[in-house]
Each structure stands twice: as C-alpha cells, then as structure tokens.
C-alpha cells in the first residue's frame, strides 16, 4: 500500500475532481485506530491512506459564520490560498435562506436584524437603511431608521437584499476559491501542533473517501446543532405517521397554506416568538388579502400581559423590565440592543459560571418585535373572532375524522380542541451532542461546555481546552451561546466573533492588524466593489 509522505502533502484543492490528489489504492477512510486516538500523528493519518492537504486556516461550516470570518481575514490581508472553508453548502447564505424562507421570511420580506448588522460589510457603514434609500431613491427608510423605535418600528432589511449583498462580497473576496465542498466528520489535535480536519467530499469528487486538512488554525461555525420538536408533537407524528397536518415552522410547510386558501380550516399555532409572529402574518395575510377563511387558535404556554423579564418574574426589577402584552414579550431584536457593544456586553464579559447563566436567563426568554402591522392584524382578528388565544399546554393529540383532536390543559381544566393543522413555532434547539462533529470535540479534543451547556469559548473565541502546540481552534455562532459575549447567534454576533478571531490571529502573525489605515483603504475598496 503506498503511504503518502506527510511532508509532501501540500496540494490545495481547487474545484474539479481532476485537481485532487491522484488515485490511491488505499480506500482512504477513517480507521478504528484513528477514531480511538485523541492526538493524531502525521503517520497514522497517512497510513490510513487519507491524503493530507496543508493549509494554515480551516473554517468548518460554510454558512454566514465562516463567511464573515473569512471576510475579516481577507480584509486583514490573508490570501485565499491560506484559507479553506469546508462546507456542504454552495453559498454562505444557503442554510440561512432556507430557514428564513420556510419560517415565512421569503426574499421580499424583512428580517429581524438591525440596519448596521451587515454580514457583507465589516464596518456596518453605510447601513442597510442608507443603502436601501440610495437604491430605491426613497428617503422613507432613512426617516424610519432616524425615528426608530420611538415613532416607527425598527428598520430591518429585506432578506433578499441581504443575500444579494453577501453574494457581492463573496465575489469580491473570492470566496469560491477558498471553498472545499464536503462534510466534515471530525477535527482532531495533531501531535506536534495544529489539527487534522477530516472532510468527506461529495461522492466521486476524490479518489479517497476522506481528505485530511492539516492546519495550524481551525474555526468552527457549524450553526444550529439541530432542531428539536416538542416531544408531544414528535410523538404524534411518529405514532400516526402524519407529517402533513402537524408541521414545524422550520420545515417546509407550504402545503398547509395552499390547503388553507382553498378550504376553510382551523389552525393551531404554538409558540410566542418571532417565528410565531411570522407564521401568523402569513396566515393573516392569506386571510385578509387572498380570501382564506382560516380560524387561528394561538396557544401560549407562558402568557405575558405586562412588564416581564426572561426569568419569568411577575414584578421584574425596574431596570430589567421588558414590555409585553396579549401573550407576547416585545423586544426589537433577539437580544436587548446593548449586548452588541453596550452596557450588557460589558457586564457579561466579566461574569462567570452561575452568575453568567442567570444573566442570560434574565435577558432571554421567548420574545418578538412589536410591529405596527402585526398589531393591526391581530387586533382585527381578535375583534372579528378568527384569531383566538389559548393559554396552556397540550396534554394529548389524536387523529379524529381527518382532523387532530387536542386535549388542551389550561388553568380551568382540560378542554378538547379539534383543528385541521398544527404549526409548531416553538423553535427548540437540540443539544450540541446531536451534532456529530461537536460531540467528537467534547469527547476527544478537550472541548468543554459553558454555563448554559454549549461550547465553552474564551473572550477571543478560542475554544477552551483545545490548544494544540502552536495551533488554536476557534468557534463562533449558536454553538457557543452562553459565553462572555451574548448574541453570538446573530449577524452582528458573528462579526464580533470574527473581529476577535482576526485580531487574535493577527497577533500570532497570521494576517495583519486592521488599524485605521488598513481599515480605511479596505473600506474604499469595499465601497468601489474592488475585488481583493
């Protein structure tokens, strides 16, 4: 069996199977020896027949998190040959667009994101509102961003505009040159420093089943570990094999809306967050604009009807009091605004352990923005009787004459409720161990959990416990929620992380510091659309 000399493994993959390493007679798959070993030597990787590719920096994920990190590094002067983004996605916005589209934010609708949260622009200037006003030659959005949130709703950008701008920036930084397609199976520390990241390329793209990327730095931005359905909903679906009438808002469920437009029906919506708001808007738009005759029962487990905080206090501290009414807790964005630079960011940075977890709880809790349009729709629905509220939980669900019979458990007792569809908008996230790669990191690479159970990262987003010689592993995004910086799972949060990671790498000699001169000259290039 030919063994690849590790020192000769310096081939950068370029798109096209013909450019990968020549065929090996070895299958090039992971062996038990590899899987059972925490620290890998070059020799055991090579002896498994897995081709080794050297690149200093690898980002795993290929979504918005990898994109903004690569963007920072490119602006910090790192060449595309020094970065590989390992991803199953063709475009960084792919997963995000899927999730927003099915949860009822198609390209023409507006996200829940601040005007200056631009993944395509590390400076956040000009903001989306300014760009939109310029593009549409309409100052309306400038006015909105000026008077928000007091005299108008918060300005938020249209999903489609965000994706178009990310595409522009991806082309500008030559993102495709850095992309290596495939699924990452494991990341292990390398004896002698750095890491091995094992990629499974698409079938037939390479002669071996796996490729090993040998790098000094690894960045993980794999996104949500997975969706978790409410246990009672999942039980119903599995037991009755009914995936048509009971759906989760994060899976494609367009068939529900199609049916509702043609057949007068009753829908049970569960959840009190942004996704519930979006789904309600869709249901109400279809009713008000397209003639659907849908009756909506909205079930809140926790009904908020006044000042609240995430910890569920009935009398929150005057300094920690969020507005709420009609079941909802109202908040402009998914975190209080000052987590991205202000007071809450500064406070959280100093907290450890249980104190930090408690702070997360107080500022957390399900919430949704107060939007005038939604308020108007809900008010009309309540008045006309086709939007009804219920408070409680579902004790059981049974199929009944082609419909679903729910037993609602409320403070007044258990009531039967028959509906045609159930849309679950509770948006639970699975534990990080549901993700194979993250599970492996916890078991084999020294990674640990933070006070809220996700990956434990330091203030510079280094994944604690995973240092390997001169190598560093970083992580950003939702898998790191609960760290010194809240808001990691947002556009701005990913940029905050990318900025810290880039600065840390620059200190280690990988890329340059982005000081005033570099920042200014690079912004001019961004502004003029010059490719770098």
């Amino acid at each position, binding site marked *: 069996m030919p063994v690849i000399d590790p020192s000769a493994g310096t081939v950068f993959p370029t798109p096209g199977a013909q450019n990968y390493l020549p065929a090996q007679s070895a299958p090039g798959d992971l062996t038990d020896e590899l899987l059972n070993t925490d620290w890998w030597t070059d020799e055991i990787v090579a002896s498994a027949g897995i081709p080794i590719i050297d690149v200093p920096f690898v980002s795993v994920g290929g979504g918005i998190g990898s994109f903004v990190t690569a963007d920072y590094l490119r602006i910090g002067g790192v060449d595309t040959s020094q970065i590989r983004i390992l991803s199953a996605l063709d475009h960084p916005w792919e997963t995000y667009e899927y999730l927003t589209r099915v949860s009822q934010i198609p390209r023409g609708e507006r996200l829940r994101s601040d005007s200056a949260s631009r993944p395509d622009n590390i*400076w956040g*200037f000009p903001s989306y509102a300014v760009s939109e006003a310029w593009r549409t030659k309409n100052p309306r959005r400038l006015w909105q961003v000026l008077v928000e949130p007091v005299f108008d709703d918060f300005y938020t950008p249209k999903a489609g505009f965000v994706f178009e701008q990310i595409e522009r920036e991806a082309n500008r930084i030559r993102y495709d040159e850095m992309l290596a397609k495939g699924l990452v199976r494991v990341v292990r520390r390398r004896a002698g420093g750095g890491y091995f990241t094992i990629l499974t390329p698409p079938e037939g793209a390479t002669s071996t089943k796996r490729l090993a990327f040998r790098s000094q730095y690894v960045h993980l931005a794999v996104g949500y570990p997975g969706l978790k359905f409410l246990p009672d909903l999942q039980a119903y679906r599995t037991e009755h094999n009914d995936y048509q009438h009971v759906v989760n808002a994060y899976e494609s469920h367009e068939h529900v809306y199609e049916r509702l437009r043609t057949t007068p029906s009753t829908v049970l919506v569960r959840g009190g967050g942004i996704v519930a708001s979006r789904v309600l808007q869709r249901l109400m738009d279809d009713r008000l604009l397209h003639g659907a005759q849908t009756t909506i029962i909205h079930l809140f487990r926790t009904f908020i009807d006044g000042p609240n905080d995430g910890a569920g206090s009935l009398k929150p501290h005057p300094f920690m009091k969020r507005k709420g009414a009609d079941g909802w807790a109202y908040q402009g964005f998914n975190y209080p*605004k000052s987590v991205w630079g*202000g*007071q809450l960011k500064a406070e959280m940075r100093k907290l450890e352990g249980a104190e930090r977890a408690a702070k997360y709880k107080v500022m957390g809790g399900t919430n949704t923005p107060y939007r005038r349009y939604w308020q108007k729709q809900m008010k009309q629905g309540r008045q006309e009787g086709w939007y009804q509220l219920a408070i409680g939980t579902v004790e059981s669900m049974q199929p009944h004459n082609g419909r679903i019979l729910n037993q609602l458990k409320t403070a007044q007792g258990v009531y039967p409720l028959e509906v045609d569809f159930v849309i679950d908008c509770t948006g639970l996230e699975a534990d990080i161990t549901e993700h194979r790669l993250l599970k492996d990191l916890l078991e084999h690479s020294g990674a640990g959990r933070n006070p809220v159970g996700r990956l434990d990262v330091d203030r510079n987003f280094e994944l604690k416990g995973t240092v390997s010689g001169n190598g560093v592993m970083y992580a950003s995004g939702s898998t790191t929620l609960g760290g010194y910086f809240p808001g990691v799972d947002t556009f*701005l949060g990913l940029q905050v992380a990318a900025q810290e990671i880039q600065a840390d790498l620059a200190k280690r000699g990988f890329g340059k510091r982005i000081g005033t001169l570099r920042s200014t000259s690079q912004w001019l290039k961004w502004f003029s659309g010059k490719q770098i």
Partner: protein
Amino acid sequence: MLPTLNGRIQTRIFMLAFFGSIITLLITPVLPGDPDYRTTFIILATVLVLGVIWEVIYHGLMQWRWEKDWPTLFGLLNAINEGILVWVLLELELVPGIEGEVPFSAFLIMFLVIWLFIWVWTNGPMRIFNIRWRFFGGRLV
C-alpha cells in the same frame, strides 16, 4: 454597536476636541457679531465639560430602558437641552473667561453645525476608521 458610559464620554471628548476644534477654527471668522477665538473655544470647552455630566444623566435614564440603548433620534434632539443649558449659562454670565455679549445667532450657528456634524459622523463614517470602536462600547482607549 451601542456605547457604554465610558465609551460615550471618550467618544464625546474626542469628537469635540478634534472635530469641534477644527470646525470652531473654520467657522469663527464668519460668525455674526465677530466673536473672537477665545470666546468660541471657551464655548466649545463648556459644551464638552457639561456634556460629560449630561452623559452621566443619560446613562441613568437609559437604565429604565430594557434595551439599555439611546435611540439615534435622542442623540440628535439632545442638542436642544444641551444647547439651552449652555446658552442660559452664557446669558447669566456664568461661563468663566468670556467677556462681553455673545450674539445668539453666532452661538446657535456654531453649536448646531458642530452638533450635526458630530451626530452624523458618530452614526456613520466613524466606523470606517476604527473597526473596534462600535463593538467596544464606543471606547477609543
């Protein structure tokens, strides 16, 4: 994105000391009533010193806001309360070092030009020159 108290004070001092001084230098010769540089720079210094106190007050008010933010519009409208206070002190001759009367129009023009410039700058172009500024609470050091 949002500043902390420390960051707000630092940004304010930097903005007034740097841009405020440049604008004052340029604008003083064309102000009505022909005030001298000594007068206009003392007014600028007064705005700065009082501004630090105002920031502490705004910070206190912010605590009642869940988001702990200070909307962009407030930052613009604060020109009214801050401007009135400086003008009242000038009228009452409580600002040390200023001799003679300062014409209201001269004060108004200078104050508004500086305020508007700094408001626009901190809400936009400032981010180009210092990428860390917006995520670090508006701190410069």
